[in-house]
Structures are given as C-alpha cells and as structure tokens.
C-alpha cells in the first residue's frame, strides 16, 4: 500500500479524537544542537472546516484492533479498510511535515494489535527514534495503551510531552455495554501510575522530565444514555484523582460502518460545547460540578451557556457592584471573562468603572446588565422579570452549510 493511501486511512481513523493541544510543556528550541524544533506557544497551523484546529500530525500507527468497542470505527468487527505504518514512516512524515511548518509535532495513537505491550512498544519506538536519532524538539503526545507494562509507560514519559489514555465513556456500565473488552480499572490504574510518575519527576529537580505537559483524556458524549451531571461528576473525579490537564469531550459522531447499538443521529455538537463551557467553569471560575447542572435536572440547558443559566437560577446573589465585589463573585457574572474581571479590578483602583467602560472591554452588555450595578447603572426590576430568560437566551441559529 502506498504512503498516501496509508496516511488517508490512518488520519481518517484518528479524526474522532478531540484532543489537539500542544501546550503546557517545557520550553525547548534547537538553537544549540543539531536537531530541529521548538515548543514556544501552542500553534494551530491550520483549521479544518469542522472548526477544529490542526496543530499536530494526528494519526494512528495502525487501525487494526483486537478490541470490539462499538462506538469505534476501528473495532475488530468493522469492515473499514485497514492499514499499518512502519515506525520509520511515521518518523519521516513527522519530520517532513515539521520542516515545512505544517505542524507542531506528533499525536500518535494506535489500535491494539497482538498485545498491549507489543502495541505500546511500537508507539514508544516512534517517539524514541524521533528524540534520540533525530534530536526532534517538537511536541509529542502519545496515547498510552491501557495496562501496558509500567516500564513501557516510564519510557514513553521520557519522550512524550503529554500522555493520555481515553476514559471513553462516563460510566462503567456504559463502557461494559459498548466496550466489553475495555477495563475501566485498568484505565484508572494507568492514569494513577502516570500521575505518580509526573509528580515524582516534578518533585525531584534533577530527575528526567516525565510528560511535562501532563496527561489528558477523552470522553465520548451521546453514544450512551449518560446525562451531563454524570459526565461532569466523572470529570471532576478525574481532575481530582489524576490531576488531568484536560478532559476532552467528543460528541459521538456517526461513523461509517456503525454498529446497530448506536444512535444513528447527527452528533450533539451543542451539548459538547456546553460541556466544554461547564468544564471551564469548574477549572477556572471556581464552580462546583454540582451547582452547574440545575437541581433536579440531569442535563445542561442547550439554549444558553451554563454560567447564564446558573445566574438566572441564583438571582438572589445579584446584582453585584462592579466597583466593590470580590474577584470570585465577579467571575460569576454572565458575560464577564477572566481578562475583563482582571481589568475591571485594576481600573477601579484608579477610578470608578462605568457602563461604557464595560463596552470598551468588549463585555456583552445585554447579558451582564441585569446582574450588575456600576457607577451609572442599576438593574432595577430587570433582574426580577419573569421573562428575563427569554430576553437573554440567544435565538436559535441556522445550521451552517455554506461558505
């Protein structure tokens, strides 16, 4: 099979993996050495028409897989064409693409062939060759194979900037039904091992770096019946237990050659988007997972962002005085981002903040106004109006079909 065909098959097989980031690693460059590459900033080199960034060469080593996970196009019982790269082919492709500035590095994943250790050994061999033979300084993200031996994991961490292992589904029950051979405990044990190694390396200054950009995971949304509350609780657990850098949510996408047990529907993209917003609220805005989904509800509202929905449910905590409220409170105002809040706090030390100042900070005023008081504005009865939700929730938009 020629390289073009292999690349098409093995990139196509990788397109369902949502992670793409190339951030958060140690800073390196190639100035002093014979090699190539640097890790300054995380750069998206292109965007696909699905709006997703292309930062890394994201491919599978092989899409042949011994497992039969129903949501996966590569499952053993699917009829898709199979291909397999050699280690050298992946190494050359990465270097050739990198030299032309198409990518920041490599994201390598693989179907499981022969045994977890055999597969992991091949994945590690690619990273080892790039780093040791070619002094490649770009970014490497390796997907680890569940329950591969701790020695292979340790070696992977030496070469990789980031390691990840996909939790795949938010609950063990759905994993049992849809991915009978996957063992959620094995996945968790691997995550636990990674966290322990990452922390060991951080604690010991002279220890060789181990996955300095941390670990991440992906959860598929909408392939099973799990609600957003379950999903967010799972994420909170994963962040707390394994210090993940990111949980990626991937709206289940209809796959060619799908199994009968899956929903043959378009992917729930809005839901995925709301989950990302909710995840953001947990990580950067001090929200508890429990408060994000309304009491008695399983899912996030689809027609407005979770922060606005939370504020509408908690009107008693508003209005907040922009010139007085604490940072943590201001971060809970709909429409206020982290930058805006920092700028408000810096400016109000010098003078009172007014409504038009907020416009200059690009705060969406209509959304924020009912919840705030500032030098020249009080929301009055606005906050208590029963139709406030209707006024604030954006109108549904047309689907995008044309350029």
């Amino acid at each position, binding site marked *: 099979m020629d390289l*073009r065909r292999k*690349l098409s098959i093995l*990139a*196509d097989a990788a397109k369902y993996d949502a992670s793409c980031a190339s951030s958060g690693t140690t800073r390196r*460059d190639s*100035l002093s050495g*014979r*090699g*190539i590459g*640097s890790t*300054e900033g995380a750069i*998206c080199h*292109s965007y*696909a*028409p*699905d*709006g*997703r*960034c*292309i930062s890394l060469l*994201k491919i599978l080593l092989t899409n042949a897989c011994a497992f039969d996970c129903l949501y996966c196009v590569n499952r053993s019982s*699917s*009829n898709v064409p199979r291909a397999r790269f050699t280690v050298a082919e992946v190494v050359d*492709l990465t270097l*050739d*693409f990198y*030299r*032309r*500035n*198409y990518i920041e590095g490599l994201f390598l994943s693989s179907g499981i062939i022969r045994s977890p250790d055999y597969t992991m050994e091949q994945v590690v061999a690619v990273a080892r060759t790039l780093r040791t033979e070619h002094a490649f300084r770009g970014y490497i993200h390796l997907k680890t194979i569940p329950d591969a031996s701790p020695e292979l994991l340790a070696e992977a961490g030496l070469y990789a900037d980031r390691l990840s292992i996909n939790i795949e589904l938010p609950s*063990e029950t759905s994993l049992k039904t849809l991915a009978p051979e996957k063992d959620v*405990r094995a996945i968790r044990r691997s*995550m*636990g091992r990674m966290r322990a190694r990452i922390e060991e390396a951080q604690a010991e200054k002279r220890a060789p770096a181990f996955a300095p950009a941390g670990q991440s995971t992906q959860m598929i949304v909408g392939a099973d019946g799990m609600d957003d509350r379950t999903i967010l609780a799972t994420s909170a*657990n994963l962040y*707390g*237990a394994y*210090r993940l850098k990111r949980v990626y949510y991937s709206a289940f*996408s*209809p796959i*060619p*050659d*799908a199994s*009968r047990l899956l929903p*043959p529907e*378009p*992917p729930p*993209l809005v839901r995925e988007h709301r989950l990302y917003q909710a995840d953001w609220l*947990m990580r950067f805005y001090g929200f508890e997972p429990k408060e994000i989904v309304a009491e008695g509800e399983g899912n996030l509202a689809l027609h407005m962002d979770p922060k606005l929905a939370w504020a509408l449910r908690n009107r008693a905590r508003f209005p907040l005085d922009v010139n007085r409220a604490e940072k943590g409170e201001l971060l809970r105002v709909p429409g206020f981002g982290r930058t805006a809040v920092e*700028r408000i706090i*810096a*400016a109000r*030390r*010098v003078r009172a*903040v007014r409504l038009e*100042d907020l416009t200059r*900070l690009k705060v969406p005023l209509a959304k924020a106004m009912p919840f705030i008081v500032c030098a020249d504005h009080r929301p009055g009865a606005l906050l208590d109006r029963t139709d406030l939700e209707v006024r604030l929730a954006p109108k549904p938009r047309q689907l*995008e*079909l044309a*350029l």
Partner: protein
Amino acid sequence: MIHVRLECETDFAGWRQAARRLIGGGIAPRDVMWSVGGAADLFGAGAPLPDDTPAAQFTVPRGFLRLAETAFLHRDRERFGLLYRLLARLRAEPGLLSIAMDSDVARVEGMAKSVRRDIHKMRAFVRFRQVEVAGAEWFVAWFEPEHHILEANAPFFQRRFAGMKWSILTPEASAHWDGETLTFGPGGTRAEAPADDAMETLWRDYYASIFNPARLKISAMKSEMPVKYWRNLPEAALIAPLIADAERRAGEMIAHAATPANPRPHRLEKAALDAEQADGLEALRAQALGCRACPLWAPATQTVFGEGPTDAPVMFVGEQPGDQEDLDGRPFVGPAGRLFDQALQDAGLERARAYVTNAVKHFKFEPRGKRRLHQSPNPVEIRACNTWLAREIALVRPRLVVALGASAAQAVSGRAVRVGESRGRIMPLEGRDALVSVHPSYLLRLPDAEARAREYDRFVADLRLAAPYLAG
C-alpha cells in the same frame, strides 16, 4: 508644527529618541507631525526639531515600553503620534495604563493585540517549500504579513528551524538563515518563491482525512484562519470542495448507519485467570478487586487490599487507603504510611513480618479542583467492607490484631470503641488478642510540634506491645 522623520517603519529607537526630546522641548502631541523615510517634505509643513532641544530624562511605568514596542509594528501611520500622546499623558497620569478602557490606552492595546495576533498567525501559516541552492536543501516561504513584523518574528523561526537553511520572503522585506546567521534583505514577490513542494500532496491528503464531515463549523474555522491567509496555504484549495461534499457524506453515514459485523474479527487471546489456582488469600484478593458492595468503589482507582505474609503473627488494620495508596494499590505507602514505618522501626518491629491492611478497602474522598479531600467512611461502608477484613483475619489467623484508629477498632470489634480509653492494653477478642491505638494520620494532623512528639512516643509505646508476638 514640528516634523519628525523616522528612518523606517520599525525605527522604534528613533521614535524613542525623538519622543524624549519632544518632551524635553515641551512640545504638545498635537503640534507634532510624524513621517517615515524620504528626503522630500511631502506636505511642506513643519520644521525639524531644533538641534539644541535636550532629551528629557524620566521613567515610564512598567509595561509601557513593551506595549509601545509591540504597537509600533502596527501598519497604522497614526501610531507614532498616538504613542507620543500616550507617553505625554502618562507623565501626568501615572496610573493611566491600568485603565484599560481609556480610549488612548484601548487603541494602543488594540494595536498591540493585532500585532501579536499577526505574529502568531505568521508562525502558524508560513509554509516552507524545499528547493536546492548550490547543491544544498533550502526551505523558502512566501508570506504576506499585515503589519511590520518580519524582523521581530524571525528569531522565532531561527530557534525552531535552527538545523535547516531557510528564507522567508515578504513584500516588504526578507529574512534568511544559513544555519549560522540571520540576515535581512529587501522585499520580494511571490514569483520568487517556489510554487510547490513534494510534501504538499501528502499534506492535503492529511488535511482532507482529518476533517470530520459530520461536524461542519465554518465560522469557527474562518475566525481562526481568516480568509486573507488562505491564498498562501496549500490546503486551503480543499476547503470549498470539502464543505460541498460534507453534507452528502454525513447523510450517507447516518443513512447506512448499521452494517453487519465482520464475520472474522481478530480478538485478543484472553489470559486465563489464575486466581483459582492461587491459595485462599490470593483468590480473596482477586475477588476484592471487583467488589461493588458499597458505592466507594466507583470513584476510586482500585481496591487496596492487604499485604504481608499469609501466616503473619500480627495484623495491622488501618482505616482506609488515602490518595497515594489509591494510586499505588498498596496499603500504608503515603505520608501516614511512612510515619507508620518509622514508628515500627522505633518500636523495634519489622513491617515485612506483619500483615498490613485497612478496614475499608477503597479511598473515600470529595473532589475539590485538583485535590481529593479525604472523608471518613460511614458505618454502612465499614460494615459492607467487613466481609473482606473478616475473611482476611480468618485466613491469616494472626495471634494479635492491632487496630489503628476508631474506625479500625470498630471494624475489628464490631462495636464503637473509644481509642483514648482502650489504647495501650492487650485485650482478648474472639480467641486471639487485640490492641487498639491511634491512626498515624492523627499524628500528622496535630498542629504543634510538642504534642506531636509526645503523641508519637505514646504511639511507639503502644506498638511495642506487639513485639513479643512478632518475635516468636
């Protein structure tokens, strides 16, 4: 009207020098006219700044220079005057820069932001094409930046592509790296750059394959990859056809949703469970790995079962595993475990001769950001987990059971126990001996060092009571 001429568009040093002298001469921003290069005075207006004007010595707030330097690269000609006005205002209003909504500050920051974005986009969208120059590989790119950023940005490419020889041509200037030095030259034209590269076909294949037609989001793509950059991106030619075909492909996937399974799937040979052949304790451990008897298993990483010789004379029972134990799958390896080891040593005991376990086998916690807050197991959980502990005790048959802390004592004896009252003496319990002491994590929580030392000694004294059992 004073007329200041700068050497070139990126002559920040010249601007800075002039600004100091303008301030020294007390010249108001509205009385200054700025231009770049050119001997002839296009407007015939304005006189040069008198040679004897002194440069004022003053300091500017932190952050101003960097902001000004970045905004200076903007292509807007008004930036020279705007920056001078901001500088002049700063002298009277030192806090000005923190008022992000001031219109001058906002404009300058907006310019700097736009420059930074252009710098970032250049890093992203430069596409090198390989050519041969004097028998050697050379990589050449054509790029059209929006602002005057080439010089400022070239060191980035130098750091990244140090091991290659390359040139970047732009309409205004060019940058070249021969593997040793970075040089700048005049601008060029697109025709001077190579028109194609052998890797572009593969890159386009990759671009087309990584796109998921079921998730079209065109506006998201356009906002991050503005159309003005498209003409120099080899993959951009695919965008329109990919979109046009996306609806059909996604529809097809949904329509043909289910296909019959491949009759000959490859499967892993399942390793046979050897738990059955193992002795009783090993089989018990294997079973406990799958325990679902109370809700604690779900959020935890794994069951933390006891460990030690199967015929150990002494069994230590702690409360429950903590964060580290949960990751490791072994009891007493975290901070409390290390303190426990120390105390055993000070009591003259050998941990390897004892069996160490916990009353509850899963870590109970509450996630809080990137931490897990330990929570005590409740009586229902302790009772549920007691099946395991009771069978451990039955299989190991220790002569002494040491319960560390109240929960452990409750689990071992089946009733609520006050540690303070019962600690430090050997008591008979169902045909064997029992001893109660505190949990080592209690010592870790004591705030003052003196109490800690005293309590530690008491703990060691309690442990010493186990010595005769281990000895013989």
